[in-house]
């Protein structure tokens, strides 16, 4: 009897594994995407297409989880923060080699990091390091302790650093290659990742191959080809005809078509981005929080999502998405109600004859796929609540410049979410420190002392639980004072051939394809 029970149990365990099919090694994955990469030296990269390809080749000290934004070890095995919160010490993995055979050690980490922050480092002039403030900007010094220990010293206690290190912006590259290729390292990336860079035909394809000397579990695929297919309909047809295995960034119509056909696999996941309408709190008309709350009540996000996003987004109520830790779900959204909006406006004695400027973004982004239509929709909702709005359009460079100088009444913006630390949104986009013109990232110019105090305090605390409590409070203040109308968090979608298995999708849409395998 016991024997039978054991056999049945064994069968139950083995069955799902058999049904799912055994992972096979080999094959080429062809990945259709909207454009070519710009630079595969990710410390220099700001565009999604560069990151997508680069993270297959390069690795960081720490990395986000396969399907989440929680930080896990990668080239660092462990780390600790000193009692004063200023020094981070990382123990590095041993026996790792770069694709060019150079051993991975503290020197490699030093060169990869110091080149970004130290003007005297010989590699400093090889890059522009545009997003240094999002990566290592807080780090004053990189110290080699021994061959496999490195220390980072920050200007002030700064808890979000760990998430920054998991970003694509902090890759570790082969020091030999950086020296050899100089400012062309972005065209010849050499890292430690599960795939190695082979060839790049500009505007056409990037070819990667399995790294057979990889330190961890080796990649299943022989080869990945990232193919640029700029026209979305052509990308859809490439998927349908089997020319590509994955088609990225399809438009909502195409995604719905793929769903209807049912011939391909689809993963959908709420992203970590946010699209919002910022209200310039320094303009007299928008100074009163009741007016800003009224505008929050006036906009129907459900319809916005149904029409502009074709359902591929979720409504936002906080400055960051629920897939990020610290999200305050107990906050009650301003429900859509033109009546409530009118009532609040009357209480605030809002001048109904006044015309507010509504600035519409000139470029489309995942969080704002059709900015002009969105602006028109918002304009109509505001009109229904009795607020006159005029849509203002500017060229992108001028748009950023002028909104960061506070020339607008209301402007549309969004944030892709960077390091997935609440600080990135709450401090980076809404603190008083960021509301200084010119060059304000806080385009609501909202200067709430209590809120900013909380954000600064949270940066210095290393306990996630403590930080969460502070961020919960910060979101309450944000909600009550309403400097924004948080609009949406868009959905990231990956459409791919059913022959592919173990396809991951992080909420930021960026993944290593180490474990992906393809049926023969």
């Amino acid at each position, binding site marked *: 009897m016991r024997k039978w029970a054991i056999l049945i149990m064994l069968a139950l365990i083995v069955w799902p594994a058999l049904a799912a099919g055994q992972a096979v090694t080999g094959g080429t994955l062809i990945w259709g995407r909207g454009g070519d990469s710009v630079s595969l030296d990710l410390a220099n990269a700001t565009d999604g297409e560069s990151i997508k390809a680069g993270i297959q080749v390069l690795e960081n000290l720490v990395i986000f989880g396969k399907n989440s934004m929680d930080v896990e070890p990668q080239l660092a095995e462990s780390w600790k923060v000193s009692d004063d919160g200023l020094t981070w010490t990382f123990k590095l993995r041993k026996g790792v080699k770069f694709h060019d055979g150079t051993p991975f050690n503290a020197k490699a980490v030093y060169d990869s990091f110091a080149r970004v922050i130290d003007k005297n480092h010989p590699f400093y002039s090889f890059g522009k390091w545009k997003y240094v403030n999002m990566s290592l900007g807080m780090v004053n010094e990189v110290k080699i302790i021994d061959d496999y220990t490195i220390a980072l010293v920050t200007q002030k206690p700064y808890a979000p650093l760990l998430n920054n290190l998991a970003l694509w912006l902090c890759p570790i590259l082969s020091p030999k290659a950086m020296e050899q290729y100089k400012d062309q390292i972005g065209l010849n990336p050499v890292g430690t990742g599960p795939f190695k860079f082979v060839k790049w035909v500009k505007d056409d394809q990037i070819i990667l191959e399995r790294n057979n000397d990889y330190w961890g579990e080796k990649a299943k695929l022989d080869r990945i080809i990232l193919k640029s297919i700029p026209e979305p309909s052509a990308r859809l047809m490439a998927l349908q005809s089997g020319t590509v295995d994955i088609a990225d960034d399809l438009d909502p119509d195409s995604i719905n078509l793929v769903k209807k056909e049912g011939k391909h696999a689809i993963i959908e996941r709420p992203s970590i981005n946010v699209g919002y309408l910022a209200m310039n709190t320094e303009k007299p008309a928008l100074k009163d929080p009741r007016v800003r709350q009224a505008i929050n009540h006036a906009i129907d996000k459900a319809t916005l999502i149904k029409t502009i996003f074709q359902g591929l987004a979720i409504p936002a109520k906080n400055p960051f998405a629920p897939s990020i830790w610290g999200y305050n779900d107990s906050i009650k959204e301003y429900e859509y109600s033109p009546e409530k909006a009118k009532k609040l406006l009357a209480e605030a004695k809002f001048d109904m004859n006044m015309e507010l400027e509504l600035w519409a973004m000139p470029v489309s982004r995942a969080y704002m796929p059709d900015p002009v239509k969105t602006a028109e929709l918002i304009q109509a909702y505001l009109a229904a609540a009795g607020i006159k709005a005029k849509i203002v359009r500017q060229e992108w460079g001028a748009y950023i410049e002028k909104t960061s100088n506070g020339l607008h009444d209301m402007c549309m913006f969004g944030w892709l979410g960077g390091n997935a630390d609440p600080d990135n949104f709450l401090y980076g986009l809404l603190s008083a420190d960021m509301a200084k013109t010119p*060059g304000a990232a806080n385009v609501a110019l909202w200067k709430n002392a209590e809120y900013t105090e909380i954000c600064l305090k949270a940066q210095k605390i290393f306990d996630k639980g403590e930080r969460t409590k502070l961020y919960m409070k910060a979101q309450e203040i944000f909600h009550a004072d309403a400097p924004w109308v948080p609009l949406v968090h868009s959905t990231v979608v990956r459409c791919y051939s059913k022959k592919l298995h173990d396809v991951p999708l992080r909420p930021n849409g960026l993944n290593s394809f180490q474990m992906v395998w393809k049926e023969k």
Partner: protein
Amino acid sequence: MPLGYISRRLFHLLLIMVGVSVLVFLMLRMIPGDPARLLLGELASPDELARLRTQLGLDQSYLTQYAIYVKNLLLGDFGKSVRTGAPIANEIGVRLLATIELSLAAMVIATLFGIAAGVVSSVKQYTLLDYGSMFLALIGVSMPIFWLGLMLIYLLSVKFPILPMMGRITMGLEAPPVTGLVVIDTLIAGQLGAFWDSLQHLFLPSFTLATIPMAIIARITRSSMLEVLNKDYVRTARAKGLNEVIVILRHALRNAFLPVVTVLGLNFGLLLGGAVLTETIFSWPGLGRYVVDSLMSRDYAAVQSCILIFAVVMALINLVVDLVYVVLDPRIRVQ
């Protein structure tokens, strides 16, 4: 005669290059949009912007910027792309050849089919053949390339998969680059399979690109032929008892060819610059897409160099057209 003429024309080319470079230089800087701001994005601080502007030389006066640009150009240095950081000469080379390959193929298709249709419809004027081919030409000229390209992909690559929908050659078949034109390179390497494969890849995009010039050429050939067919020398040729085919091809078509050659030249130039849509639909890694991408990110040096190259190519085509006139029509003599 032609040598002096050619050298004079080449000197004109130099003047054209100076003019074009000044114009493009100024026009680019008149478009609103600060390259540094576009490169660094919404998060950049004023300091970082200033640093990048200095690095790119954007803080200099226009005159100094232009002088530096011309000096480097004379030294054969096109500069570095601010978008990708790569030397522009490297970036342009491969893409220009891809565009030339596509445009040449389109031109061959357009010329062969366009002239054939034009000749047939002029000879068979007011018949079903004439109406049919001119109706097709009308459709060809008014068909949006975008729509046609996508429909061709849908029909011939997805519904009935007989032709590849993108790229220049199947991966792994590439021949060592000699001319940079994949079709020719495979032939030089003697790889017939790869040659056939690259021809197949070339067919859909070049056919799509060829539709408009094909239609224009057909219509021009027809009207030019109709004019000539009533001339005395054609009647004489027929009276001599010559074979009708020889009458049409040697006596009529050759005389009708001058306006056709003009249109051919103009269209070839247009194809080079206007292949952007076709390149986008068929994921063809050509120069058109590169110019648009560079323009969007205000990559001044890259756009300037591309436009300059287009201008030179256009001027050279015009020169060739003028020389062909002389060959075709001995009456044309240049002083």
